[in-house]
């Protein structure tokens, strides 16, 4: 009698386990759009309290440990803007003289990164801003240093960001002088513990020197032109020998980024001037 009850319990356990594994497998093969919809819905309903708590924790962390650094950055920026006032006035006057339209502004939404201690955290980040403040899927996400990634899925109050570490990340890139174009993607090579990007699709006739800064080119309709990506760290090798490959050391480390700017528009900006060959 007891043995039969034990056997039934074991069978029940096995059924529960198999059921959970089957559901996990379904979740794994779920089409991306469905999975995105499901996670966005859960973040705004059942797990909303946890997102609110994490948002609050990120704010408190900033207030506790990063406030001084932010104040210093703000002071430096205020000084820089003050010094550029005359330059801007001169630029505006020159533009009006040659009837050139105003340079396109990049509206943005600031957001805090809600970090979690997950092993895959660097690839996808959760940020505390969503569609209610104008964030949309595929909006470019940048920091003061440069490109971080793009919005993967935007919910009403939080969004997930695909960073440049994600295996599916791609961005059209160009050097500061606009001479060399290519496509950046995550590299399987690493520099110590730091992941790298690789610039592919560079024509064999073109060559880059170590330390050259690479920017987004504005092609592709996702990333506006002129966002710094990183600098050339090494020369890679294309096994087929059809193209030049360069390893890029990115300016932004997704693992430690705390605040981001989500560019809400415009994306079609391939005719904008590049900031030049200098870094950020």
């Amino acid at each position, binding site marked *: 009698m007891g043995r039969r009850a034990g056997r039934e*319990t074991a069978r*029940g*356990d*096995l*059924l*529960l*386990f198999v059921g*959970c*594994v089957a*559901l*996990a*497998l*379904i*979740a*794994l*093969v*779920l089409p991306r759009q469905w*999975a995105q919809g*499901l*996670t966005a819905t*859960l*973040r705004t309903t059942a*797990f909303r309290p*946890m*997102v609110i*708590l*994490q948002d*609050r*924790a*990120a704010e*408190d*962390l900033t207030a*506790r440990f990063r406030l001084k650094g932010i104040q210093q950055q703000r002071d430096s920026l205020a000084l820089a803007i003050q010094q550029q006032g005359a330059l801007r006035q001169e630029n505006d006057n020159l533009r009006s003289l040659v009837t050139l339209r105003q340079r396109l502004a990049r509206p943005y939404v600031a957001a805090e990164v*809600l*970090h*979690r*201690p*997950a*092993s*895959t*955290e660097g*690839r*996808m980040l*959760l940020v505390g801003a969503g569609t209610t403040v104008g964030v949309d899927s595929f909006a470019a996400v940048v920091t003061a240093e440069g490109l971080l990634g793009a919005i*993967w*899925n935007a919910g009403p109050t939080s969004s*997930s960001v695909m960073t440049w570490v994600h*295996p599916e990340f791609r961005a059209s890139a160009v050097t500061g002088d606009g001479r060399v174009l290519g496509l950046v993607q*995550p590299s*399987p*090579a*690493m520099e110590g*513990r730091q*992941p790298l990007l690789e610039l592919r699709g560079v024509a064999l006739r073109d060559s880059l020197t170590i330390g050259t800064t690479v920017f987004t080119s504005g092609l592709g309709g996702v990333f506006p032109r002129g966002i710094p990506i990183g600098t050339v760290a090494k020369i890679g090798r294309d096994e087929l020998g059809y193209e030049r490959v360069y390893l890029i050391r990115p300016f932004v480390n997704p*693992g*430690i980024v*705390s605040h981001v700017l989500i560019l809400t528009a415009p994306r079609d900006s391939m005719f904008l001037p590049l900031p030049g060959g200098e870094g950020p």
Partner: protein
Amino acid sequence: MTLRSSDRRRRTRSTDRVRIGLVVLLLIFTDAYLLPSLVTGPWVPDLLLLALLLLAIRQSPGTAAVIGFAVGLVADVLSPAHFGAGIMAHVLVGWGASWGRSVFFADNLFVNAALFAVGTWVRNLIVLLLSGTAASELLVQLTVWSPLQGLSTAAVGVLVVMLFRDWLAIRIDA
């Protein structure tokens, strides 16, 4: 007399559940608010996983798998990498912890600490594999960050077991 003793047993069991629930709630709150408001980094202890392991070693394997499913869902929703990877990893770790406990675990502090550390490492391994991580990154994660996170999770786990051993009904031999 028999009824009274069964009543007492039922009451003790419900008190136990409330106490364990309180410990789990404390861990969830610490994981969602307290810890991220103090530190961030890949080495930070994962208290949701710790809560899962503490519950798993008290439950049958099937129930542990269901709890693992719930914890994995939370992980996948809050740190999106590849939906389903977290669920699968937590189900397997929860089920494995419960099964292992019923087969060979002793009520020993060191064994509990080893369970928390190994559980964290195995969970990370499964998540990384299912998320299609490149070999170089996988190596760094499994040799540097996952062992560190396993150790920090084990340290917090030992602290929780020491503080709440009566509530968790864990007998420590050594």
